[in-house]
């Protein structure tokens, strides 16, 4: 008989867990997500770094210290298996004054404790060799070659596609509202779409993990949001080759300057604590953005003019009581596993978190996991027109002319890419057509013009493929419809 597992939350944590658990013959895995698509929680808006694992104090934050470096090592393998966009470009933690070296020495020592390979201090000359356009004030740095960057939502999508291909069932637009516990054992979750039976419930609900835990009667922690804001610039603005950090302070790793994987200069984040009830407050603020600007300028003085901004955004870190990841089977409720407080470096740690959870199922819950004879570790990346050489494009066009037709002119995204994205959305169970689902799979609308040319065309394609009226297509799920009706709706006295 199979053990039924319900994972709450399809962020990077839940998706990684789903993928790892899909390996086992004797588990039936359900991945539950309230949003219309996967990866739209905390995992959507962050710095996208695969951190080096040198800065978490193993005394204070043992989970973070252990899982970050393990996660980093696993990502080096996972990005290949799953064809996740990535770059391993290394990081420099920059010293601007002599005292900074004391802090960098500490990080070096901590990195050694945590098992981080290949780190070292570099002097002024080498730092400019590694990063020629760094501020002239730099006097040296800690060089961490294993740091990298991935596409965080593409990563979640890749994990879920792979998990579904290996038998995991998804339940999107499904919000968990209650957890059924009988005689100290979980029995399942009550949702807006009915009851889902489960022997094991894994709480990977990001900012809402405290609320979910309370549904199971567990209330020893609380999660409050910590906002971080960002600027992204046009792709013709030169950015650094490495990830640049300032020397950290006791509260923060500081404002990063980096060229993100699509080639855009990105700066951020700052850190602003919000009250626990503001878990939906993703608004950017003038003050926050200015703070980021000032911070970034210290490392990268040649920031472009403001007219080169193509987007600003904000993310919320789920900060738990105590500050460390809470990953454990709760003793008072058998079968309930918390994966809570997954703040930074949660993206980096996710693969390690997933293995940790598998270990907990075996060791704390005593369920022996049997590997499938055939488990497919691979997943093919979506076709990107912009990555094809002309002759490859011609091959693709022969099979489907839509691959020759450009929809997003800034990023050269073809109609074929978009139709494939829609197919993949349907494969993992996306029910509501949204432009953001296409955007995160194809990069359409993320360029210089921010979608003003291509969004209407994408809306048409979504409307056609999902069989809905174009104005009912959404930007990012119900409540964000593109329009209110056909162009004469108001004159007829109707309103959608």
């Amino acid at each position, binding site marked *: 008989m199979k053990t039924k597992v319900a994972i709450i939350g399809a962020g990077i944590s839940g998706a990684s867990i789903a993928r790892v658990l899909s390996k086992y013959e004797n588990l039936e895995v359900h991945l539950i997500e309230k949003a219309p698509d996967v990866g739209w929680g905390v995992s959507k808006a962050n710095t996208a770094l695969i951190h080096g694992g040198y800065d978490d104090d193993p005394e204070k934050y043992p989970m973070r210290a252990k899982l970050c470096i393990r996660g980093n090592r696993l990502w080096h393998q996972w990005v290949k298996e799953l064809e996740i966009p990535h770059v391993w470009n290394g990081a420099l933690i920059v010293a601007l004054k002599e005292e900074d070296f004391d802090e960098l020495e500490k990080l070096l020592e901590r990195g050694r404790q945590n098992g981080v390979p290949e780190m070292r201090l570099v002097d002024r000359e080498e730092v400019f060799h590694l990063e020629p356009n760094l501020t002239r004030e730099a006097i040296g740095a800690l060089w961490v070659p294993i740091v990298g960057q991935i596409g965080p939502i593409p990563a979640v999508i890749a994990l879920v596609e792979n998990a579904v291909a290996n038998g995991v069932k998804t339940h999107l637009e499904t919000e968990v509202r209650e957890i059924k516990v009988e005689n100290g054992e979980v029995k399942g979750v009550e949702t807006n779409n009915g009851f889902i039976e489960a022997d094991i419930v894994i709480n990977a609900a990001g900012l809402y993990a405290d609320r979910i835990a309370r549904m199971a009667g567990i209330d020893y922690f609380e999660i409050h949001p910590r906002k971080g804001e960002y600027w992204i610039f046009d792709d*013709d603005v030169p950015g650094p080759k490495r990830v640049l950090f300032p020397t950290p302070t006791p509260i923060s790793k500081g404002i990063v300057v980096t060229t993100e994987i699509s080639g855009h200069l990105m700066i951020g984040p700052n850190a602003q604590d919000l009250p626990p009830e503001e878990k*939906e407050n*993703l*608004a*950017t603020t*003038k003050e926050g*953005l200015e703070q980021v600007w000032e911070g970034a300028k210290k490392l990268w003085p040649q920031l472009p003019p*403001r*007219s080169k*901004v*193509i*987007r*600003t*955004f904000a993310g919320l870190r789920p900060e738990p009581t105590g500050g460390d990841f809470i990953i454990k089977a709760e003793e008072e409720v058998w079968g309930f596993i918390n994966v809570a407080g997954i703040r930074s470096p949660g993206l980096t740690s996710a693969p390690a978190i997933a293995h940790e959870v598998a270990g907990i199922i075996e060791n704390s819950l005593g369920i022996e996991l049997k590997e499938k004879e055939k488990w497919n570790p691979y997943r093919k990346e979506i076709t990107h*027109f912009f990555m094809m050489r*002309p*002759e490859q*494009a*011609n091959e693709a*066009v*022969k099979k489907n*002319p*839509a691959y*020759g*037709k*450009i929809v997003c*002119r800034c990023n*050269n995204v*073809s109609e074929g890419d978009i139709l494939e994205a829609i197919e993949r959305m349907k494969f993992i169970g996306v029910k509501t057509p949204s432009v953001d689902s296409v955007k995160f799979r194809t990069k359409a609308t993320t360029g*210089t*013009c*921010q*979608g*003003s*040319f291509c*969004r*209407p065309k994408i*809306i*048409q394609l979504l409307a056609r493929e999902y069989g809905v009226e*174009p*104005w009912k297509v*959404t*930007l*990012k*799920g*119900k*409540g*964000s*419809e*593109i*329009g*209110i*009706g*056909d*162009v*004469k*709706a*108001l*004159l007829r006295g109707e*309103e959608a």
Partner: protein
Amino acid sequence: MEPFPQIPMLSYDVVVIGGGPAGMAAAVRAKELGLNVLLLDENDYLGGILPQCIHPGFGLHYYKEELTGPEFASRLARKLVELGVEYKTAARVLEIKNYSDLEKVVIFTSPSGVYQVWAKAIIYAAGARERHAFEIGITGDRVAGIYTAGEAQMLMDIYGVLPGKEIVIVGSGDVGLIMARRFALEGAKVKAVIELMPYPGGLARNVMILRDFDIPLYLSHKVVEVRGKGRVERVKVVKVDENLNEIPGSEFWIEADTLIISAGLVPSVKKLKKIGVEIDPATGGPVVNDRLETSVPGIFVAGNSLLINDLVDYVAEQGELAAEGAKEFIEKGGIESKKWIKVEKGENVRLLAPHYLSGEGDVYLYLRVSKPMEDVELRVPEIGKKMRLPVVKPAEMLRIKLKAEEIKNTEKLTVEVVKA
């Protein structure tokens, strides 16, 4: 010297990139001049942005008749077809390569595949893009209901979608004003037009729209923030002082479900920049001579890629001129000039084109002023030329014709707009 031996190759005298009014006029003229020409446009239809501009106001100079955008476009398109000009729609130019003066390659993709076209000259008429909400510093939530004017226009007039019913418009230029009327005509409530400058940006006849439809105009104000869950719910407006700095305490909120950004256009020239074409920071388009040739020989530019035009008539005129330039270039191996005359910006001139004159023919100078003025003269002191104008506004492009014999003997020209 084939860059991609594996993909099909075509060959033409001229490739025109962009099938808007500039590109169509260029292709038509090139064909009339006997050149072997190919026109490429990425849309499924010709016309550029005109098919979505269903209002009148097009063609008064060019056709001596007031037409709508689609009418203007279809006249040009009909001519194109009658002349047998070769064109491809759904054909996006990916890259331009400049091997030598008379050897250029344009790589494009289409539903029948990727092609390379060898050409002696290129006329670049790819239009412009609109500035969006992030570029103008709006913070807050990233929600549905924020559109550029052109996007909203495309949704309404090409796809038949009504974006919302309570509208705030950023920018009182012609495009913003025309969209205000468009929304009002469909029964939506236009709650405000917000303008950063102390004066409206559009032509007087378009500013009248506000009175006709009872739409409030806030001058010296800007939208700074948008809030909403899912969709726009309210926008924050702030008053600015003479230096355009926000005045603390002057903030207020307007409830609306839609925010339209009409904050100006930027010439699309990234592909030209990649091959080293020199760009004028004032126009945002290339530096050109009087045949609209860029700093890379044999690459010509016309329409909104050259500079932002408010009249389609000038756009079409520029297309024709570029075609004539291409003809001369191909036949003579270059644009003839005994000496290049530099044109400089004088008082109250924000931008102008062309930047260099050959002195070999008559030329139109296009320019915009920095600030509105009444009762002025447009002067070119070096040649004693004067043109009296009752009003000038940054929104209105000025055009002045200089005759070959007037400029022949000068080294440089300055254009200024001063009190009469």
